[in-house]
């Protein structure tokens, strides 16, 4: 018989879900700048809807307390999570287009802290199911993406267009796309640069005992600087350079803008890549190398047939860390005029418009998660089957 037990992850999600009921589910603002008024779930939704949400969370709590190893129980939290995730957005969006008040033509409706918290809690339920459905191809896919897909459809159909964030988006569609691409270019190219330099440094540190310490001192120090400080540090030397050689300015290289941002971001991305390259070489089994040489491989054959296949997964997981980190850090680069999604965040902060902040922050989060998953997939596929999958050395 199946053992009945407590499923901690689902339970945590359910508890957070219940707590979220204690915060404002939506926020109504007379206009986009004013601070507005928060409403709880029961103030903003009809009683059947409120009841439905409460019931769903109760179910989640129930499955958390009496987990069984059979398939329905592994599936349940994920399905509940997906339904709640869609409901949070759907109900808010519906409220947004159904609430029209002639006295308040600029009324803005957005998801409140409680709403976001509930969405987060529902995501925990989804993750919980994902874990339990390891190896169940279709079901796992269903649990992972059905809610997301529904949200995309909801967004594309224009149903959400009355929500405040979407209004901010519609007002800046062109700008949004250009900042998004600027963000991607900055984050991507900084990691490319860091990959070239970082793998080089890693190999260098590995080969020479003398260089090992200084190399790691350097990359570790860079990593400890707050990103803002590093961006600031870049300004002065670059400004000086561009003053001395005005030609540089024609290429856009000056104290502020993309150039200092790119340099700082590349420096930041160095640590994980250098460290993982170094480690991957460090843990190469000397017996395996000896076998390769002993079988008659030359240097190049050893590199291609043995060293790269064995170390690539670890180097790639360093690049994965660097990418996720770089996508986050690029947000801050907006402060020195490099553009990117951070532009909306800082505009939003300046004007105290929370939804504008979200317009910058939410895509950054989604990008990070998406990139992380994509890299995980790539690493999984590239890792030779004979090795343990996804081994990331501790930092």
């Amino acid at each position, binding site marked *: 018989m199946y053992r009945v037990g407590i499923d901690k992850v689902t339970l945590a999600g359910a508890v957070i879900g219940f707590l979220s009921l204690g915060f404002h589910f939506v926020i109504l603002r007379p206009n986009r700048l004013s601070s507005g008024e928060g409403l709880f779930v029961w103030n903003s939704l009809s009683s059947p809807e409120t009841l439905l949400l409460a019931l769903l969370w109760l179910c989640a709590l129930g499955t958390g307390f009496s987990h069984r190893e059979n398939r329905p129980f592994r599936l349940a939290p994920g399905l509940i999570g997906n339904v709640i995730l869609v409901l949070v957005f759907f109900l808010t969006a519906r409220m947004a287009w159904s609430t029209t008040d002639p006295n308040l033509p600029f009324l803005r409706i957005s998801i409140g802290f409680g709403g976001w918290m509930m969405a987060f809690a529902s995501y925990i339920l989804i993750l919980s199911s994902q874990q339990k459905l390891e190896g169940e191809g279709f079901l796992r896919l269903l649990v992972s993406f059905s809610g997301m897909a529904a949200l995309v459809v909801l967004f594309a159909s224009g149903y959400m267009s009355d929500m405040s964030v979407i209004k901010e988006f519609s007002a800046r569609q062109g700008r949004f796309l250009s900042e998004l691409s600027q963000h991607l270019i900055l984050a991507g190219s900084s990691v490319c640069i860091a990959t070239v330099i970082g793998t080089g440094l890693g190999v260098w540190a590995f080969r020479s005992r003398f260089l090992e310490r200084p190399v790691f001192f350097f990359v570790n120090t860079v990593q400890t600087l707050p990103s803002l400080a590093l961006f600031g540090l870049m300004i002065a030397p670059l400004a000086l350079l561009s003053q001395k050689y005005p030609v540089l300015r024609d290429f856009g290289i000056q104290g502020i803008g993309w150039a200092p941002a790119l340099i700082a971001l590349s420096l930041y991305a160095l640590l994980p890549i250098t460290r993982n390259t170094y480690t991957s070489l460090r843990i190469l089994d000397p017996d*395996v190398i000896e*076998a390769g040489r*002993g*079988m*008659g491989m*030359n240097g190049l054959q050893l590199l291609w047939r*043995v060293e790269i*296949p064995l170390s690539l997964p670890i180097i790639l997981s360093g690049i994965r860390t660097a990418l996720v980190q770089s996508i986050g850090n690029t947000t801050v680069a907006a402060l020195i005029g490099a553009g990117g999604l951070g532009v909306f965040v800082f505009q939003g902060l300046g004007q105290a418009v929370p939804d504008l902040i979200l317009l910058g922050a939410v895509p950054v989060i989604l990008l990070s998660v998406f990139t992380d998953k994509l890299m995980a997939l790539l690493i999984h596929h590239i890792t030779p089957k*004979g090795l343990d999958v996804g081994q990331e050395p501790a930092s």
Partner: protein
Amino acid sequence: MIQIRNVTKKYGTIIAVDNISLEIPGGEICCLIGPSGCGKSTVVKLINRMLEPANGSIFIDGKDTRDFKPELLRRHIGYVIQNIGLFPHMTVAENIAVVPQLLSWNQEKIEERTEELFRMMRMESDHYRDKYPRELSGGEAQRIGVARALASDPEILLMDEPFGAVDPLNREGLQAEFMKIQSDLKKTVVFVTHDLDEAIRLGDRIALMREGKIVQYDTPEEILAHPQNRFVSDFVGADRALKRLSRFPVSEFMKKPVVVKVTDDVDAFISQIRKKGRPRFFWLLDEDERLIGPVDSRHVHTPFSREEDVMEANCTAITVRDSATLRDVLSRMLGQGVKTIPVTDDNSRLVGEISILEIEKVTEEAALEC
């Protein structure tokens, strides 16, 4: 043939190999043995130029190894490394195919050779070929390591403790298999081991090393019979006389047994040997010449009764196979408290008998020589 001439290898101030000369005739197994750190692995690696000597030179079939590119040289020398070192990201079949691949054999030939090696190693190809090294037991991995070294059918085989990770029982099995393979292939083998019994069993010659030098290089019989100095006699141990016995196959010392089939006239036979006075004992065989047991001609009923007159009802306990050594024979005699035991072949047919007198003769020779 491998000739090592005045070779020295230093690591910094450590002299790992100190002016060694060694000649290994083609088709023979030379066992390198000695305490840990005495330079055995270093000698092996000097032969395939994983290491370069500070002094001296090494010739293979009369050609200086320095005349070849190291990689090309190594592709023609089988190498079993001390810690197996299978490639963890390759399947067992891919591991075996590494050298043929480097030699750019075509796929068909590689495939054929791989299957042949699985058979040679007595491993089920279908079961093992797509496994990864981490899915193998230590013994299986070592066999694959040997198969990988044999893949391109090299004339020379360097084996650095190839059976080190195997328990004693399985090790004997592997040794027997290896000897069978070697009797067909006749490779020139340098075999490093820690285990004196292994060296005595396998080696045509044994090179005993100490602190980078070769202390004695001789056939196992000679080393055991005539240790050149105190170090050698200590190393081979006080029981060297006993160890030496394992060099002598029983098949070379057994005598023709006196036998009678149950279907013959046993009573006539008994009265005949009683008249002659000897031999006192004979072996009774069944109709298929399988051994039933020994009979003492002085204590038999007349007429002869198969049930009552055969001395050992269950004589498998005292029987040895014809592949055994005198050492096995002696231990069987001591264990069972008998002085003469029968020797049988694969089909448990009696092929000879051996008594403690023959063993004494062998040990006396050695004692006289000492």
